[in-house]
């Protein structure tokens, strides 16, 4: 961690912030005007929150650790690395959703899906994502920006919390559910196959209505659980690209 100085880390964060803002703006321009509006607002707010968090946190650390330059260097570098990790996640996991959404938007199926979901909740934004992989999938994020900004706020000093308060207020105005439905591009003209989307929508109903709560608490099978724990306990900490975190098929 000490091999790169804090100024370099902070400069890299600035570059990453610039790149994400530019990409978000370009992708927004490429999308139809009504698509992923809430999601884009959430990404913009999270990006601003990361910038604010780092700025105020570094200022706080300079005030309190001025007499210990080595610790200050370490702390600033850590916070910059956290910012880079968060921005990297936005870049790698979230922006591709906008990119995929800009390729084709399925105007034919969207109104039917929208009408179906309105029966359960109106506090949502839905984006259809055509995939080149043959997968149907549901991504549902509840109180997206607000929840992430609260994590930064919760573990900050008072000045940083005050600086994040305005962004948090804006985040509270975003729709409660940001959802994406992935479907295979190959099925886009097959009304029969697209019925599978009803299953994916049921995940949203499950989440908004809390149907899963009927099933918990639940006790896991002893043997398979102990095998899982033993495997987890003997695994080294991953330092490179890993396999799937959790896949239940």
């Amino acid at each position, binding site marked *: 961690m000490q091999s790169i100085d804090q100024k370099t880390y902070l400069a890299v964060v600035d570059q990453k912030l610039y790149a994400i803002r530019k990409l978000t703006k370009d992708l927004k321009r490429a999308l139809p005007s009504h698509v992923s509006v809430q999601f884009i607002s959430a990404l913009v707010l999270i990006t601003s929150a990361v910038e604010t968090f780092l700025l105020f946190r570094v200022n706080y650390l300079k005030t309190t650790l001025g007499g210990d330059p080595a*610790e200050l260097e370490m*702390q600033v570098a850590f916070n910059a690395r956290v910012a880079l990790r968060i921005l990297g*996640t936005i870049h790698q996991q979230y922006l591709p959703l906008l990119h995929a959404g800009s390729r084709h938007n399925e105007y034919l199926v969207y109104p039917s899906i929208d009408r179906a979901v309105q029966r359960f909740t109106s506090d949502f934004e839905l984006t259809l994502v055509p995939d080149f992989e043959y997968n149907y999938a*549901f991504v549902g994020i509840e109180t997206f920006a607000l929840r992430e900004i609260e*994590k930064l706020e919760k*573990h900050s000093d008072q000045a940083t919390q005050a600086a994040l308060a305005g962004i948090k207020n804006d985040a509270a105005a975003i729709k409660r559910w940001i959802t994406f439905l992935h479907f295979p591009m190959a099925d886009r003209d097959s009304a029969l196959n697209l019925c599978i989307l009803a299953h994916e929508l049921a995940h949203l109903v499950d989440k908004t209505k809390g149907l899963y*709560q009927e099933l*918990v608490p639940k006790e896991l099978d002893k043997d398979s659980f102990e095998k899982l724990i033993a495997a987890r306990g003997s695994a080294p900490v991953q330092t490179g690209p*890993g396999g799937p975190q*959790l896949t239940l098929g």
Partner: protein
Amino acid sequence: MIRSREVIPPSLEYALVANRVLAALASNDLASREAKDAVDDGLQLLNSMIAGQQLTALRTVSADSYQALAYGEGVRALEIHYRGRGSEPIVLLRELVDVASSLKENRHVEEEAIREFKIFFQSMRDIALASSEGPLEKVS
């Protein structure tokens, strides 16, 4: 299939808590409000780990199951420096809770206990940043 995404995964959140505790200890002003809040944040994380251990032991899936994640990260941090000591993780976690409670209430804490407290949180922080970014979580 459900794909879950988090911008700030739990491990990164634990790293933020750990670093905040370390910054408070380095400030040499444990009486300040920020230091007390930071130690309290650390204490809550340690208590989550203990609760997570109990959920793990009971193999229970419930709304609080996420605390088992904290326990999993805590065990890894403990393993790095305490592997040879032979104590159960839960015993070590309770010792760390005692240190955090004493620091929060301005009670005297032995230097050695503070050193071990720091090592634990340094390990928590370093594990989170050394590990690879969590790929998408998929449930069919």
